[in-house]
């Protein structure tokens, strides 16, 4: 399905009046960017299904498996390194017409990569996805079966599952309380940018350092015998594995260089393109072997490393701070040396984003439904401060924002680190992106989040100030001991189950299983404290189960999986000879993603009000109504919706319950400990888990029925339930201590495009943002696409292919998300400021 082209007879002004920003972008961007943007094969699943033409890549998995088997007598880490090197040396690579930046995670532009060694349960799902097998289908299915048979029982998750407590394993795998997999095979890898992306170091420098470490270690192993030297043998293995992969990575880049040279010298006739191809060749001969010298090399190095890391593990996020690390090269090339014009730089920036947009891997159905329209959370961090606290915004910050409006990709998106010294010029550029309907940048309160990093994980202030979004929301430093080499998605809690189980004695009526502890028959509860006590115990049980699973996965991951490439670009691992996933020396930066959180506050408040305070209904009546999914109890359900206070209206009755829930949880966050003996705060947000879980969460006292969409944000009020206006929403959210109550709290707001038009609109928004900042909220993001456009897009999707909306912690093309998610976004209250 392709988008309808821009109408040539319609002027830019007319498009602007109609707020058809996507056609303005198409008309304004360069021919190169237009070609590259339209050339992308969409890898994000539409609702839950892959787009026509997308095929799973079987080349990479076959190469990896062959070599893994060939080196079967090697230690695991060397086996992985050699298998990965074999993929880098042999997989098909390509260079797209007009492109200047290369690198892709797969053998052809329309392929999605498949991680074979992560989890057998994911591998088996390949058989159920129609249309994604390369032709001839029968032969591909045979190949998949062979690979699956080989890996069955020996993937990372298979190994973890064998040592998990069986009861934990069954409950975790029920799909009711969490999702994800306890292995770095599918992790969110933080990157140690302070080590490798500052233009000071290339892979050859790292290899030289590692060789020194090996020489020193070998010296010790032939010295005086004793137990103190035994661990060194393992470290030498790790170092050698790192070198194997780093060298292969240089060869991988050189393959692109060779292809570009072949094209330039033998196949291309256009002189200008020949020059570009020779520049690609020089760039890939330079990086990542040596430190970059200019913007193209800097982008290329970053791109290649991100791509190559995905060959090693299915990274579900893309933590980055592109303006900060690439900014000095932009300023040198464009402003000082003038070796690049602004337009040429825009082409590079735009392509850098497009290359990231096209990256995608095969994901199981639950992951696709939970993150509709995207392939992972590529949330790039811009703005913020430098380690000394001064403003880090530079010319590339605004260049990225301007380019984003031209290319309009839904992944990556930007998150902007706001602080009091941000200039008006930068704020205006951010606002223009929001006004153009991108849904990004989201806004993050830098001083609050720096304090948050220090509070929960003890990062020193200079390190906390380097933070990037490790996934959608959670801040993570990029320093040697502060960076978190991976975070497991399996620390994702379906929080609505806490109140559901408190009301049903720990029994899950949806999956038909005793899940949580037996906290008493709620029909016999005589006051709110008994209910709250049951909620607390269910909350502690649920989170502890997830964290136990994740901790075990993390602890065993270096042995069961291991990441030699990530280790080779992580200073702590290079220095110590450990795998990057080994927690040794890491400060810890864990968080629990809290899906479906706000239902707890609204449900508990509704029971308190209508049962215990007003005594309008009894607990017995309530539980009976919930067990019937409110069927036959419509009037009662409406009372629970309308006559109980709801979060987001600056009403202390329910807001106090929200705070009490958060603080009770925060106390438990300090009791549970991660593998670095640090804390486990919560970060309430949903991606599109509010839709994914809608058929898993039973009826709730906030009036919700099984099947209804859950609330969309981490602290966003329920759609249509915030009736007191935008300031009341901010005031409710401002009651949360955004430093001490949790890690980060997602707030979605919808604004009216009409009201936000022109200079007046900008000034109104600035005033609103001042209130947001003064109240100390850590996050906010906006949808600014009218109901009219969204409804038109539902009716005529082909015409509105490029409309982007903010879903939860990410943006997606509206036509790529399910009807239920679309309706959920339309139902959100449009706030008049």
């Amino acid at each position, binding site marked *: 399905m392709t988008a309808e082209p821009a109408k040539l007879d319609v002027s830019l002004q007319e498009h602007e009046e109609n707020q058809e920003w996507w056609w303005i972008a198409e008309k304004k961007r360069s021919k190169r960017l237009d070609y590259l943007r339209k050339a992308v094969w969409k890898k994000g699943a539409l609702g839950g299904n892959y787009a026509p*033409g997308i095929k799973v890549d079987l080349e990479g998995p076959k190469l990896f498996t062959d070599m893994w088997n060939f080196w079967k007598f090697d230690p695991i880490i060397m086996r992985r390194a050699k298998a990965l090197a074999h993929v880098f040396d042999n997989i098909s690579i390509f260079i*797209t017409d007009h492109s200047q930046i290369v690198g892709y995670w797969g053998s052809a532009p329309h392929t999605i990569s498949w991680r074979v060694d992560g989890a057998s349960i994911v591998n088996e799902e390949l058989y159920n996805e129609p249309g994604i097998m390369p032709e001839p289908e029968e032969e591909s299915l045979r190949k998949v079966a062979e690979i699956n048979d080989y890996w069955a029982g020996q993937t990372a998750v298979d190994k973890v599952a064998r040592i998990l407590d069986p009861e934990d394993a069954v409950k975790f795998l029920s799909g009711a309380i969490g999702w994800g997999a306890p292995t770095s095979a599918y992790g969110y890898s933080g990157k140690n940018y302070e080590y490798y992306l500052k233009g000071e170091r290339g892979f050859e420098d790292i290899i030289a350092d590692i060789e020194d470490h090996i020489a020193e270690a070998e010296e010790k192993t032939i010295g005086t015998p004793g137990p103190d030297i035994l661990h060194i043998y393992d470290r030498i293995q790790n170092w050698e594995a790192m070198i194997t992969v780093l060298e292969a990575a240089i060869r991988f880049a050189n393959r692109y260089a060779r292809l570009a040279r072949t094209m330039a010298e033998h196949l291309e006739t256009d002189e200008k393109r020949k020059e570009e191809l020779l520049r690609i060749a020089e760039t890939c001969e330079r990086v990542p072997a040596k430190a970059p010298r200019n913007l193209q090399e800097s982008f290329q190095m970053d791109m290649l490393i991100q791509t190559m890391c995905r060959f090693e593990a299915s990274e579900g996020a893309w933590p980055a701070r592109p303006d900060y690390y690439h900014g000095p090269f932009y300023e040198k090339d464009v402003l000082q040396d003038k070796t690049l014009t602004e337009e040429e730089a825009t082409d590079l920036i735009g392509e850098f984003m497009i290359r990231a947009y096209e990256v995608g891997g095969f994901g199981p159905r639950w992951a696709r439904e939970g993150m509709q329209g995207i392939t992972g959370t590529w949330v790039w961090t811009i703005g913020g401060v430098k380690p000394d606290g001064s403003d880090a915004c530079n010319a590339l910050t605004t260049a990225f924002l301007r380019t984003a409006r031209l290319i309009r990709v839904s992944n990556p998106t930007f998150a902007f680190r706001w602080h009091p010294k941000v200039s008006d010029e930068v704020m205006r550029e951010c606002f223009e992106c929001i006004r153009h309907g991108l849904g990004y940048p989201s806004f993050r309160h830098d001083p609050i989040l720096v304090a948050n990093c220090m509070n929960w994980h003890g990062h020193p202030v200079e390190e906390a100030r380097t933070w990037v979004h490790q996934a959608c929301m959670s801040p993570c430093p990029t320093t040697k001991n502060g960076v978190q080499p991976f975070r497991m998605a399996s620390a994702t809690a379906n929080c609505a189950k806490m109140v559901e189980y408190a009301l049903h004695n720990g029994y899950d009526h949806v999956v038909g299983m005793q899940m949580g502890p037996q906290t008493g028959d709620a029909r016999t509860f005589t006051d709110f404290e008994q209910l709250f006590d049951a909620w607390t115990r269910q909350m502690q049980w649920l989170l502890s189960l997830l964290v136990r699973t994740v901790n075990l996965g993390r602890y065993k991951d270096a042995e069961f999986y291991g990441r030699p490439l990530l280790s080779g670009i992580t200073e702590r691992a290079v220095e110590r000879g450990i795998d990057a996933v080994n927690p040794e020396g890491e400060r810890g930066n864990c968080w629990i993603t809290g899906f479906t959180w706000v239902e707890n506050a609204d449900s508990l408040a509704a029971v308190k009000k209508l049962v215990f305070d007003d005594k309008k209904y009894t607990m017995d009546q309530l539980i009976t109504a919930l067990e019937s999914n409110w069927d036959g109890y419509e009037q009662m359900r409406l009372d629970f919706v309308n006559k109980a206070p709801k979060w987001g209206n600056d009403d202390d009755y329910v807001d106090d319950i929200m705070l009490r829930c958060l603080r009770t949880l925060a106390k438990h966050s300090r009791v549970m400990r991660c593998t670095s003996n640090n804390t486990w705060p919560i970060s309430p947000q949903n991606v599109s888990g509010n839709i994914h879980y809608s058929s898993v969460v039973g009826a709730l006292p906030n009036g919700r029925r099984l099947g209804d969409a859950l609330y969309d944000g981490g602290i966003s009020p329920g759609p249509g339930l915030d009736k007191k206006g935008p300031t009341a929403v901010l005031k409710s959210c401002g009651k949360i201590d955004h430093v001490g109550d949790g890690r980060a709290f997602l707030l979605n707001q919808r604004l009216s495009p009409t009201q936000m038009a022109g200079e007046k609109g900008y000034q109104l928004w600035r005033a609103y943002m001042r209130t947001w900042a003064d109240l100390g909220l850590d996050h906010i993001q906006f949808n600014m696409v009218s109901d009219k456009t969204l409804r038109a897009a539902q009716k005529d999707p082909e015409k509105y292919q490029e409309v982007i909306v903010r879903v939860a912690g990410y943006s997606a093309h509206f036509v790529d998300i399910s009807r239920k998610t679309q309706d959920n976004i339309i139902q959100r209250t449009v706030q008049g400021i």
Partner: protein
Amino acid sequence: MSTCSDCKSFFPREDEPGKGDCVRRVVDPRQAYYTTKPKNPEDDASGCGEFQKR
């Protein structure tokens, strides 16, 4: 028997004698690109549907 070295798509590697790359043009429904994968000059070309005599 034809081998890859007889094929127009085969480009020997100057720095690594005995090795080469199969470089081909692909035009898919969305984009056009050049793709490459390693090949040895003596690899059998008889089963390759893309073979083009040099």
